[in-house]
């Protein structure tokens, strides 16, 4: 049952009807319909998706600056915490690196910074959030956003019991992963059986702090408004 026009199939119109253009009319109509559907989806959902991506990080920021207990207290008091996202541009050795960061302001004072950093782990890329105090002298928190390390082994870097080692570590010397002997102030105990994952995270922290420390000035940072 093909739709037919009752006009002759010879001559110019006949050639048009049998041409590829006419035979593809169904595809063109479908493309139009589907294109409109996709445009509608894009208009309605892209805001939601972008918000999801941002909220994933925003939710973590209070506890990265103040620790879980005080962050919960601030949340229950509905305290106003101003979090501004931005990008910092670091120039070193003829190369430019960009880091996503968040400036946290509470009661009109700078409460700290949260930097997003990433690097290669044992299995795949690892993405972390590092919390720093206003003077960039101590680490106030660490959170692992994304990792695909070995379940049961390297996976353990996501647990607070390992991450909390980073809290109150000073940023003036690079951190070192030590197995068992964690007396030095800049030592991090490795996850049992996952030295490489532990070293990757520590390496990312060291590299980021080395890049960013002392360079968080208005000249290098570009803030953007948060779209909710």
């Amino acid at each position, binding site marked *: 049952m093909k739709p037919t026009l009752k006009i002759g199939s010879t001559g110019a119109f006949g050639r048009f009807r049998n041409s590829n253009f006419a035979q593809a009319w169904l595809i063109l109509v479908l493309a139009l319909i589907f294109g409109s559907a996709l445009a509608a989806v894009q208009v309605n959902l892209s805001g939601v*998706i972008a918000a999801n991506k941002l909220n994933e990080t925003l939710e973590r920021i209070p506890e990265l600056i103040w620790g879980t207990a005080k962050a919960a207290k601030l949340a229950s008091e509905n305290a106003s915490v101003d979090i501004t996202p931005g990008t910092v541009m670091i120039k070193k050795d003829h190369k430019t690196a960009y880091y996503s960061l968040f400036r946290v302001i509470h009661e009109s004072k700078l409460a700290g910074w949260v930097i997003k950093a990433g690097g290669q782990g044992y299995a795949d890329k690892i993405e972390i959030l590092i919390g720093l105090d206003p003077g960039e002298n101590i680490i106030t928190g660490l959170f692992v956003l994304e990792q695909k390390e070995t*379940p049961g082994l390297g996976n353990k870097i996501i647990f607070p019991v390992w991450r909390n080692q980073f809290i109150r570590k000073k940023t003036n010397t690079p951190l070192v992963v030590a197995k068992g002997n964690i007396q030095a102030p800049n030592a991090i105990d490795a996850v049992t059986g996952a030295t490489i994952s532990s070293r990757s995270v520590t390496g990312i922290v060291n590299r980021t702090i080395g890049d960013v420390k002392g360079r968080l000035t208005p000249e290098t940072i570009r803030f953007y408004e948060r779209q909710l």
Partner: protein
Amino acid sequence: MTDLPTPFERFIQGILPENPVYRQLLGLCPTLAVTNGLKPALTMAAAVGVVLLSANIIISLIRHLLKPHLRIVVFTLTIATFVTIVDRLLAAYMYQMSKTLGPYIPLIIVNCIIICRCEVCASRQNILAASADAVGQAIGFGLALTGIAVIREVLGTGMIAGFQIMPAAWPSWVIMVLPPGAFLTFGLLLALVNWIDATRSNKKG
């Protein structure tokens, strides 16, 4: 023209006799990739079900307008559109799961199950039969994924979707949630299905 199966037959066939994974050996990529946990497996099965149902319905509606040499283009266009929509919906409303499933949702476009059902069923039968076929095949696919996911997750981590099943002393067989575990589990289950099938047809004949 031979009699095409009724909607009910299509539905029943899709679940076990013509199971897309164990009998037709289609859609193996997600079967191995997302079955390291029960939740990702169920989400993937649901996503494939939604795309399959939508594509079957649309193709069945326009089946009389399909030109023979352009029908693959039409199938591909329809499937790609619905997969994009499902992918966006997942990213908007189930963000964490969308990140876990990662690139395997867009890979539904090249999942042979959907193109095969469009070709075999939707382009030849009415909407009711096409929908029944889609639902049946999706249930079959879901059963297959769930079976593998349960085994891999229980043996690999001792838990299912957060619930501890094995005693705490269970040494998690981590390899089960890694790629080799997927191959081995599926291979052994496929052998089991073949054996059950052979035994039953021996009893009959």
